[in-house]
């Protein structure tokens, strides 16, 4: 008896816990977009040579992902392109001017993941090593989106060598060199004067001045003005338990200026721009979303030229600075008509919250170098070389709604018509049997 009561109690408890799924419905819906670009390169200076139609600029390492999850719709799409024509504004994924042999797209119905590459491609004056795009997207068994996208130029080296651009044929390169050297000499002299005034021994300063001038003279005979190496971009949508994490990252770049043999290794100035990263996360349990971004940081390395004559290992003095501070270093160049160069800092935003939406972006470092070369109008300063490095953005919105179902069960709309007819037949048979019995009863009266 006791066992029976206990069993009934257990069943009741279990029964109350096992509320049918339709009794209350939790609807989780969220959607997001994310993208990253390793490098946008435009060379308006080519106007000078009439080559502007041959090279419309270049975007290297473009990745994006978008997803939308709701009770009635589940979609996730990925995109990765190794190289495209310069994409100036917000891209329309359906009509990107990309080299299709470096593009891979993916979705739930077409998971992708094989990758697409092209070797040693070149666009006009710019040569690229292997450019690849790889994209893989799917939906997990829990119904969360997953998308891994990576694109860039493997062993990338995008050469922006002024000599390669043929600018010497357009008479500007020697002038450019002279102006550049004069500007740099002025800059180094200022630094050395300051050093001397602050107590650095005069013979040390003199040695530095001689070494610098000797170095600049060597550079003037070479062609290693600027070499750029750029990393890949990735955009990943990664499910983690109830969370969906979205991370877009552009790996940054290394720019070598005024090198003897390889400006990336022995340049007078080496500028390293760290990655730009934008992240967002949606918590499927609480419905909360948050976002953050890390903007690129520039590390400036200035070569210590004291030991140049002694063939000592190349030494660099490093300074980690915010990109906008580069402008003050570059200020002397603005006095040269062709060489004005500006750097715009990669502004970044930490988790902008608008209602149930969050967004974050690391807008990258924009360098507009040698603005005076190939201007569309004199004094407009729209020529030169335009670089945008390490840009990433994420937008995410989500919500959780707990809704009561429209009813506890679907309406009963099927009358037991056959039951009625069967019951009628049975009652009729019984009635007939009774009538027969009554007849027999009466005949015996």
């Amino acid at each position, binding site marked *: 008896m006791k066992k029976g009561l206990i069993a009934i109690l257990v069943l009741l408890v279990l029964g109350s816990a096992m509320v049918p799924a339709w009794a209350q419905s939790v609807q989780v819906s969220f959607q997001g977009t994310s993208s990253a670009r390793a490098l946008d390169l435009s060379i308006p200076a080519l106007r000078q040579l009439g080559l502007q139609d041959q090279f419309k600029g270049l975007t290297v390492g473009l990745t994006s992902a978008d997803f939308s999850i709701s009770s009635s719709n589940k979609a996730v799409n990925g995109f990765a392109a190794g190289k495209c024509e310069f994409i100036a504004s917000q891209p329309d994924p359906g009509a990107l001017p990309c080299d299709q042999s470096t593009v891979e797209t993916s979705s739930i119905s077409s998971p992708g993941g094989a990758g697409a590459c092209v070797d040693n491609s070149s666009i006009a004056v710019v040569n690229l090593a292997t450019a690849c795009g790889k994209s893989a997207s799917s939906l997990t068994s829990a119904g969360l989106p997953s998308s891994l996208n990576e694109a860039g130029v493997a062993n990338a080296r995008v050469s922006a060598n002024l000599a390669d651009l043929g600018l010497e044929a357009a008479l500007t390169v020697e002038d450019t060199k002279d102006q550049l050297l004069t500007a740099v000499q002025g800059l180094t002299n200022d630094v050395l004067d300051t050093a001397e005034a602050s107590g650095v021994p005069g013979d040390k300063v003199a040695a530095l001045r001689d070494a610098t001038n000797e170095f600049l003279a060597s550079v003037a005979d070479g062609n290693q003005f600027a070499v750029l190496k750029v990393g890949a971009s990735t955009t990943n949508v990664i499910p983690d338990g109830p969370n969906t994490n979205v991370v877009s990252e552009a790996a940054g770049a290394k720019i070598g200026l005024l090198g003897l043999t390889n400006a990336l290794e022995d340049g007078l100035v080496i500028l390293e721009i760290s990655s730009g990263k934008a992240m967002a996360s949606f918590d499927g349990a609480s419905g909360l979303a948050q976002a953050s971004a890390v903007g690129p940081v520039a590390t400036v390395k200035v070569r210590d030229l004291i030991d140049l004559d002694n063939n000592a290992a190349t030494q660099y003095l490093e300074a980690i600075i915010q990109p906008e501070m580069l402008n003050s270093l570059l200020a002397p160049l603005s006095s040269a008509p062709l060489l004005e160069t500006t750097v715009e800092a990669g502004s970044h935003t930490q988790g902008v919250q608008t209602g149930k939406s969050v967004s974050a972006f690391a807008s990258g470092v924009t360098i507009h170098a040698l603005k005076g070369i190939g201007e569309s109008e004199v004094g407009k300063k729209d020529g030169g070389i335009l670089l945008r490095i390490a840009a990433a953005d994420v937008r995410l919105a989500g919500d959780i709604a707990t809704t009561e179902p429209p009813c506890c069960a679907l309406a009963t*709309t099927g009358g037991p018509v056959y039951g009625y007819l069967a019951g009628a037949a049975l*009652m009729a048979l019984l009635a007939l049997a009774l*009538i027969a019995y009554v007849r027999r009863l009466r005949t015996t009266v």
Partner: protein
Amino acid sequence: MKLKTFLPRVSLGRLFGRRALAGFLSVMAVGMLAGAGWLAGYPFYTDLRAAQEQKRLAASFETTSVKHSYQERSFTEGSALTRMVIPKLNLDTVVVEGVSLKALAAGAGHYPRTPLPGEAGNVGIAGHRTMNGKPLSNLQELTAGDRIILITPLAQFTYEVIPAFDRHANPWVVHPNDASVLQPTDEPVLTLTTCHPRGSAKQRMVVRAKLVGMESVA
């Protein structure tokens, strides 16, 4: 098998008197025949009752009270809500508000917590497959592309049956407690439910259609 087997072996005639017993059993037999007639005729009676109710609803649908109800979004159970026309099923019926047994005596009813016809989301309508006018008797005949028209005093909404989706056919069969078919949707859709198999409440047949057109009623 003889009736004797089932009747008591004691002599009822001796117990009550044969004449009295014969009279009582005669009355009982007549009553049972009447009951059998009522049972056999009840499904047809519900059809007649539904037809009468449809006439009354059609008349009330023409009045301005239904329009006011739409404007105020306030309907009482059993009141006319919309006319539903399904050309393929040769169906033209007035749908009432509510899906209780009483409301569904008119044939078809609107699930109260679902949107009104034409509104965003999932409009739910249940209809009898047998008895009570059996408006959705042949629901299984609907296929992708078939039109379902809901006419309200404000506008006429045309829905189109969609192809198979979410890995099931359309129409498809669900458990009677599977109210997920009436869950809100992002797109404006119409969900019709009826009992399955015919004459049984063991399962439900469901059809999903999407809104494809709207015309204002002058």
